[in-house]
């Protein structure tokens, strides 16, 4: 495959991956998380544990592939796409997954944790404890997650819009190139 074809195919693949992430994140924010509020207390631990394990493949495969393709675009991108745009995309991804690691993931685990598990989680995520969120009730942690997770929705959506913008620029779709 010629080099310019690889570059444009990579951009299209990235557009697909970023669109998948937008679809997932909006549905998770608007449907999956709000459903937690309806799950009865005695079922919650099992429900949450199953949910936590189920999202690994769903989130990490597209997210990992998006990170790889975005980094690859530093070297393999159509000439119309400025390097600064790739930096912006990488920054959005970095902020998104750093906050996931340091903030949303520990919060999610804390919400579903049994009292015996809480200390172990806080040892692995001391910043959550340092910020004073260690004595909250499950309901308060849940509200904190739902409210702060809008930031992740915004970041993932912004990333998708940026990749779409890059696609419009890099693939010359505004010019009619039909043969």
């Amino acid at each position: 495959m010629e080099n310019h074809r690889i570059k444009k195919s990579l951009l299209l693949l990235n557009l697909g991956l970023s669109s998948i992430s937008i679809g997932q994140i909006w549905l998770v924010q608007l449907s999956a998380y709000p459903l937690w509020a309806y799950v009865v207390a005695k079922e919650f631990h099992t429900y949450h544990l199953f949910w936590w394990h189920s999202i690994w493949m769903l989130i990490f495969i597209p997210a990992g592939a998006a990170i790889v393709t975005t980094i690859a675009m530093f070297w393999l991108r159509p000439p119309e796409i400025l390097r600064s745009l790739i930096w912006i995309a990488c920054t959005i991804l970095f902020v998104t997954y750093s906050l996931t690691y340091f903030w949303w993931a520990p919060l999610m685990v804390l919400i579903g944790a049994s009292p015996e598990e809480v200390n172990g989680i806080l040892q692995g995520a001391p910043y959550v404890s340092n910020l004073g969120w260690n004595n909250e009730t499950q309901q308060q942690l849940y509200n904190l997650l739902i409210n702060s997770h809008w930031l992740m929705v915004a970041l993932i959506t912004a990333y998708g819009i940026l990749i779409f913008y890059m696609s419009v620029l890099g693939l010359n779709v505004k010019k009619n190139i039909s043969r």
Partner: protein
Amino acid sequence: MTKELFLLLNLALAFYNAGTIWAHEIDIFRTWKFIDEKTFHIVQKAHWKKLPYWVFIPVGISFIGSIALFWYHPGQISIAEISIAFASQFLSHLLTGIFWGPWQAKLSKDESGGGSPYLKKILKTHWIRTALINVYALILLYMAIQVLS
């Protein structure tokens, strides 16, 4: 709007739908079996209330897009490719109308909630719908690579 931009919009929407269907397949439906009978219908009702804007409208637009592609597509794409893409979406909607839709309706009235045989049927077969929506997205990606790269 150029034909190429139209194809790109269809591609983005197709993958958005692939994202929502994966969230349903792995994240939402499978957790329902852990909800007790009393709560189940509240959860299901709350879930369906959210769907019109974030799932049904994008799926509807994507279906209209797959039909519009027959008349408005870049010259390099053959009608055969568009037909295969359309068939995968059409089959997904047809099977939803015949199986998953009625099963969901029966599930909403079934008092056994998470233990319902209709939920078991949905969990056992919904991957077919997931596969069809993904096939549609991948065909569009193939078309876009052909035309735009």
